[in-house]
């Protein structure tokens, strides 16, 4: 069965420091991988995706993520955190075969708190 794990409920980081939000996945075959961000009482915003090609994917707001097939991980990173990055972050995976009936599987979310 497909699954996504975000092992940290919360990540605390000081403004200006690098941040990492961890994600590991389990899916048969080659996955599509995604990161979303959610601000309080808002819908999810798409940050970035890995489809194929370069393992380092760059996305919105200076975020990037590295696809590591051997470790089945897709950690979200940013070189220098901002207070405004504080939000709930979701990792998601989808098997690249199956169309709409192949569901997007979400992790449980990681709350990122950036202290000034």
């Amino acid at each position: 069965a497909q699954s996504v794990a975000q092992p940290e409920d919360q990540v605390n980081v000081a403004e200006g420091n690098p941040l990492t939000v961890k994600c590991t996945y389990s899916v048969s075959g080659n996955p599509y991988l995604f990161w979303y961000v959610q601000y309080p009482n808002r819908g999810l915003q798409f940050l970035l995706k890995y489809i194929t090609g370069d393992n380092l994917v760059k996305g919105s707001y200076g975020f990037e993520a590295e696809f590591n097939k051997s470790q089945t991980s897709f950690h979200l990173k940013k070189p220098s955190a901002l207070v405004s990055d504080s939000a709930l972050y979701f990792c998601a995976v989808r098997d690249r075969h199956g169309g709409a009936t192949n569901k997007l599987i979400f992790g449980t979310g990681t709350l990122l708190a950036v202290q000034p």
Partner: protein
Amino acid sequence: SQTIHQWPATLVQPVGSPLSLECTVEGTSNPNLYWYRQAAGRGLQLLFYSVGIGQISSEVPQNLSASRPQDRQFILSSKKLLLSDSGFYLCAWSVEGAGFEYFGPGTRLTVT
């Protein structure tokens, strides 16, 4: 450009009352449409998805139902709300090949 609307933004309803949440998408044709519920501000649960008009797939048994009367309209309904129906309801859409979904702004439902 594509836009997704949800209304109402917030809703407070008594137990046993009916529910109707609406989602519409602009700027695309024949999208795949989804309803999610987010409880306790965290995990996302897929409730329904639709690949076309009148085609609804349910992911979990519950007292909710969904309908797609038009290509870009997706409605979430209930005949009698339960306390456990409280949560943040998110509509999303995607197109074949994109792989990911665009989310609406959500509806905060509180059942009292």
